[in-house]
C-alpha cells in the first residue's frame, strides 16, 4: 500500500482525532456569546439590522456546531454529501412550499 492510500485510510478512521476539550469549551463559549447577542435583539432595538443580525447568527451557530461539534468539517466527503444533500433538499422544499402558497394560491 502506498503512502497516499495509507493517508486516505487514516482520514477514514472513525477514531480520527477530534476536538480537544479546551477547544470545545472555547467554541461553546463563543456559541453562548452569540446566543446572548440573539436574545439581546429582544430587548434592544436593532432597527433595520434586526432580521439580518438574527439570520447571520443563526447560520453561523448552525454551521459552527455542524463543522466542529459534529466534526463534519474534518470528515470524509461522502458524509458531507449525505448531510448537505438532505439540508439542500429541505431548503428546496421550503422555497417550493413558499412559492406554492404565496405566488400560486
Amino acid at each position, binding site marked *: 500500500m502506498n503512502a497516499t492510500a495509507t493517508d486516505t485510510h487514516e482520514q477514514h478512521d*472513525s477514531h480520527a482525532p477530534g476536538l480537544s476539550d479546551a477547544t470545545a469549551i472555547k467554541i461553546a463559549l463563543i456559541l453562548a456569546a452569540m446566543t446572548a447577542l*440573539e436574545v439581546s435583539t429582544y430587548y434592544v432595538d436593532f432597527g433595520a439590522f434586526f432580521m439580518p443580525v438574527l*439570520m447571520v447568527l443563526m447560520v453561523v451557530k448552525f454551521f459552527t456546531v455542524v463543522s466542529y461539534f459534529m466534526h463534519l468539517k474534518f470528515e470524509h466527503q461522502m458524509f458531507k454529501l449525505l448531510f448537505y444533500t438532505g439540508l439542500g433538499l429541505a431548503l428546496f422544499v421550503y422555497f417550493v412550499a413558499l412559492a406554492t402558497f404565496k405566488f400560486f394560491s
Partner: protein
Amino acid sequence: MTHRCLVAKKRKSWHPLDDVAVLTSHDTGHDTGNGHSTSTGLSNNKMAMWLFLGSECLLFGGLISTYMLYRGRITQGPRPSQIFDIPFTSVSSFVLLMSSLTMVLAVTSAQRKDNERTKLWLTITALLGATFVGGQVYEFTAFYNEGLGFTTNLFSSSFYTLTGFHGVHVTVGVIMLLSLRGIISANKDTGDRAEVVELIGLYWHFVDIVWIIIFTLVYLIPA
C-alpha cells in the same frame, strides 16, 4: 471421523455472510480503522447515521416550512407575543447548547477510553436534555392555560407540531444517552464503544442545531 462427516459438520456451521466477510476483507475491503472492513473504507454505521440525519433535515425542513407559512394565521386565541416567555426559552436554549458541549466531552473521553468520564458526561448531557424537555412541558402547559390549544388556530397547530416533534427527538436522545450509560456500566457493549458514543453524539448535536433554527425563527422573530 470420515471425510463425509467432516463436510456435513462444516455445512451445518456454514453462514453465508462469513464467506462474504472473508472475501471483502482480503480482496476488496478497506479497514475503517476499527477492525471492520467495508467496501468504501468508511464506517457503515457512521454513514447510516449521516444518511439518517440528512433525512431528518427533510422532516424538520417540512415542519419549519409549514410553521413559516402558517405563523401569521391567528384568527382566535392569544398572539405569540402575548404568551412567549423569551427569558425562560433563552435559558432552555442555553441549557441545550451546553449539553452539546458535554456531549463533545463524552465523545473525547470515550476516544481516550476513559469510561468513568464518559459515563459522567453522558449522564450530565442526559440531565441537561431532560431539563430542556421539562422546560418545554412547562411551557406547553402554560400556553394551554393561556388559551392556546393545539386546534385553536393554524399558528398553534404548526407551532405545537414543530416544537413537539423536536421535544420528542430530545426525549429519544435522553433515552439513548441513559441506555448507553447503562450499557457501558454493565460492560455489555460489543464493537467499537467510542464510535457508538460518537454516533449518539451526532444525533444529539443534530437536535441542538434544529433548536438553533427553531429558537430564532419561532421565538425571536415575531409572527
